[in-house]
């Protein structure tokens, strides 16, 4: 979930090159919430600031559904609300290898559970 087109598009390409099926990207809260209700999502990558809103409602919904996710963001952890401070963070500008590694790790987590 990312509102900046170029960033979203680059991420999509990186993930697809790794064989990940990408649902999205989407830039709006409403669209994201609809997707996670409608489809089975294994992993989510969320930007924190979507320009017109913060992605916290989506994050909270994902936590409730037990879907692993990370924040890919320009913000530091201290700016996030308390319940979301333990979510893994990747800083922008993102490193493709780091993103792939993080996605694998998140998927691995699901297996363990």
């Amino acid at each position, binding site marked *: 979930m990312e509102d900046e087109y170029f*960033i979203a598009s680059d991420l999509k390409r990186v993930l697809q090159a790794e064989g990940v099926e990408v649902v999205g990207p989407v830039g709006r809260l409403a669209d994201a919430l609809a997707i996670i209700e409608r489809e089975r999502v294994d992993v989510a990558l969320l930007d924190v600031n979507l320009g017109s809103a913060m992605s916290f409602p989506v994050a909270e919904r994902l936590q409730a559904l037990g879907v692993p996710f990370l924040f890919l963001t320009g913000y530091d952890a201290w700016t996030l609300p308390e319940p979301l401070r333990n979510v893994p963070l990747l800083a922008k500008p993102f490193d493709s290898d780091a993103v792939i590694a993080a996605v694998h790790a998140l998927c691995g987590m699901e297996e363990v559970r």
Partner: protein
Amino acid sequence: MTLELHDESDLLATLARKNAVLQAINRIFHEALGATSEEALGRLCLAVAEDVTGAEFSFMAEMTPTGDKLHDLAISDRAWAVFHRMWPGLGPETLPTHLDLHGLYGRVIHDDASLIANDAPRHPDAIGTPHGHPPLASFLGVPLHRQGRLVGVIGLGNRPGGFREIDRLAVEELAPAIVQALYSKRAELALRESEEMRRVSIELVPAILWRTDGAGHNKMSNSQWAELTGQSEDEIAAWGWLDAVHPDDRAGAEQAFRRSYSNGEPLERQMRIRGREGAYRWFLMRQAPMRDAESSVTHWFGAATDVHDLHLLEERQRRLVAELQHRVRNILTVVRSVFARTADTGGALEDVADHFRGRLDALARTQAIVTQTASGHVDLENLIRDELLSVGVADGEALSLSGPDVPLPPRAAEAIGLAVHELAINAVKYGALKVPGAALEIVWSTDVADDGTRGVHLTWAERGVPVIAISPNRQGFGTELICEALPYQYGAQTQLAFAGGGVRCSIAMPLHEEGNTF
């Protein structure tokens, strides 16, 4: 005091004198209570001494700290009356100072001994009298002592018939009482002044001050706490003042204060306090212990300062910093992305560098404009002209712009700025702005959608451009921007065609008023 037991009449005279002196001392201390200045008390003491001795006028003087001059403490009322006959306009405000130690009174100081001079003008120390002073016929001077030290002199003049031993004795008996009364009055006035200064400065301090005993009980505060919260002294005395603290801050505040009282550590904490009208404001509360000689805490002194505005500013600043970090990192990511795309389309390094620089400049331009205007809005026409100018195109026959004034919010300005940049570069290199005889028409308008949001509709139409193969390098980024990025990121509806005659592009973008974190 010596008792000269010559005969009964001497005894009676002595008794009479002592009586008079006692009454005089009584009078001095009685009047001292009400005296409002040292000088007024001095005049009273002199009047008493004149009454006891029968002198016509008198004065008192105090030595300076350096011991080489005298300042007049007071000149008697009778003396002033005499002066006024000669010099109307002189008054108690103009007491002489810095008198040299000469004359008969100087002799008294010098010898630290009383002096009677009943033929004053012919006394070896006589220096005459100041201008306007009545001629001195007889003089009695007595030194004034305090705690064993010589501090000044009292001088009386012109007793009809001259001064006698009993007069000297009487004044010597009065002298200690006079000194005591004067110095007490001086100390009392100094204390009152310092109290007044303290009171005024406390009221001026823009903080609420309080004090408790060593255990934190019996809280007392200056009037400002009551004015702020409406609580009475009784209410705040125990822990009642906590009622005025915001419920969310109350538990933490109580804990912090109790901890401070029990371990003697100073405290500093922010909390919200409810004013009389019911509104809460942020206050910085601090308190510190006062210790006695054995380092036990005897009192706590505390102050509360209104930091509400400061608090809000700090919060705002934190949000700003976070927002700034976000923006900067986003922009860097976008720049990296744009570069990757520019480089991907291949071509000579010069071309890549050129394209990239152009795009980076366009990005920078929109950022600059957005931050420059107070509202953060950019006029659409200015934006278009700026972009055209940046590729070297000014008004001319080949170019026509028309449309209403449209202030664009920052995000829309960014999007349209980048799109226009791509279209302009393309036109300059291959299109209507390069081919002679070709024309470019840019038209825009605004509308309101069904849901009430305003939108802007921009069309870019080139004419007269022969159909040529447009470089796919160029096409890639600009096309992606207009056809993919604008709809995805800005909710725009776009169309792009490379028809006969040149590029035709249409962009319909909603103009949401952006919520401002700033």
